[in-house]
């Protein structure tokens, strides 16, 4: 579904964020990307939806290369939840923000309403519908941001630290909701327990490079690898040791 081949990326100020990254994500799978701060997770996700211009390598979604001509199609297929919900929410009302995507796709009003109501239902935030996004709490904003992307009915979900700001209950709700959804998911996160619960595969990044790729439980128990990548054993595995 997502094919990333030998990509490298430098920010305009010369900061090298990604170096020769190759990843393949199967349709319908839940894949996590973990790594220390500044490892390049957000940059990787942003490149997949073409937010920066790729310099080296190639990214393909469903066989379509990400590039100028295909952006529209790809963004319809791939929903991206930003690391910071404030970057994403800009309408004066939660409901308007959630319908923003579907309206851009020119869906008929009934379909827009159906998509929006469904997204509100999944994230359990029906009560926030008429509130102003900038007056919500951090976690509430996060839930709205996720709902806004779900309302676009994408095939692929890119989630950048989706569980940050969430309280334990919302986090649990989020994990349950994600388990139910059939989308292909690529999740950048520091929440390794979430990875254990939700993902069948994890990619560990360090300083812009992929250092490991495999089953979460195995990789997380590899002390040397975890040490080198600046990661710590998740709580749920610590007790077992």
């Amino acid at each position: 579904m997502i094919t990333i081949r030998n990509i490298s990326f430098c920010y305009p100020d010369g900061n090298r964020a990604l170096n020769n990254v190759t990843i393949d994500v199967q349709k319908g799978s839940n894949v996590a990307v973990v790594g220390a701060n500044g490892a390049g997770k957000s940059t990787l996700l942003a490149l997949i939806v073409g937010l920066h211009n790729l310099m080296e390598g190639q990214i393909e979604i469903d066989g379509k290369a990400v590039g100028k001509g295909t952006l529209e199609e790809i963004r319809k297929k791939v929903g991206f939840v930003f690391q910071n919900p404030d970057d994403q929410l800009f309408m004066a009302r939660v409901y308007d923000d959630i319908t923003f995507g579907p309206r851009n796709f020119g869906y008929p009003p009934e379909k827009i309403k159906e998509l929006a109501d469904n997204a509100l239902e999944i994230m359990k935030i029906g009560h926030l519908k008429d509130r102003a996004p900038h007056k919500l709490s951090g976690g509430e904003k996060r839930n709205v941001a996720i709902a806004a992307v779900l309302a676009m009915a994408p095939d692929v979900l890119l989630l950048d630290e989706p569980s940050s700001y969430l309280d334990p209950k919302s986090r649990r709700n989020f994990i349950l909701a994600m388990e139910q959804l059939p989308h292909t998911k690529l999740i950048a996160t520091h929440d390794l327990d979430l990875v254990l619960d939700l993902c069948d595969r994890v990619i560990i990044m360090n300083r812009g490079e992929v250092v490991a790729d495999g089953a979460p439980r195995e990789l997380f128990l590899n002390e040397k690898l975890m040490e080198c990548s600046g990661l710590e054993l998740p709580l749920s595995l610590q007790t077992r040791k």
Partner: protein
Amino acid sequence: MSKLTDSLNKIQSLEELSDGSTVLHRIHPMAKMITTIFFLVVVISFERHQISGLIPFFIYPILMMAIGEIPYKSVLSRLLIALPFSFFAGLSNPILDSETAFILTGIPVSYGLLSFLSILLKTVLTVMAVLIMVATTPMDQLARQLVRIRVPKIFVMQLMLTVRYLTILISEASSMMNAYHLRSVKQKGIALDHMGTFLGQLLLRSYGRAERVYLAMKCRGFDGDYHFARSHSARTSDLIFCFGLCTSFFIFRWCNLRLIIGRLFGQ
């Protein structure tokens, strides 16, 4: 709380009022817009020295605020922002034009003073009318009507995005201010030698933020064309609202009411 956050809330609270459900809120946005524009034209069309004719027009904003359940405070406080501009713009009038128009209880009133007062009254009326419209109609509904009356879409978009950018700018500024004050407890305000960095940072940050917001919009299919949510179609009540009010503005403006009423009661 910092003043910035206050003014942010002011901008936003007007927008939130527009989510109400009074009769006035439910009038079709186009009807409100035409009425408001007609009101503006009529008020502005008064001659420079006219004052008495303007007074009856205050019935409109007062009535609308009552029907729309708009708190007086929110309109008046915003009015105060606009008033100083016309105050200073009109200030030269009494000085330049000191010819006496009439004498009121022994005090000569000059034409300049009259036109000065007339400017102030007109400002109050027009600003109130626009604020009332904004407070009872959601922003994107208004924008949509602007597009429908053939205002070029690019201007309307610009307007909407400016309003959004303002929110971003102010929220960045207020969070920076808070962060600054928490770490420089003794000071009031920002020290002058920090001002340059502060403003520079603010610009960069709000720019960066605006760019990310824009990217997020693009991710959700935004292609430079804003797709407005539809409003209900116009009903008879909307027509009556618009036609009724416009007619009464017309009567108040061009028929000499005092004369008519005087005649009615004089007989």
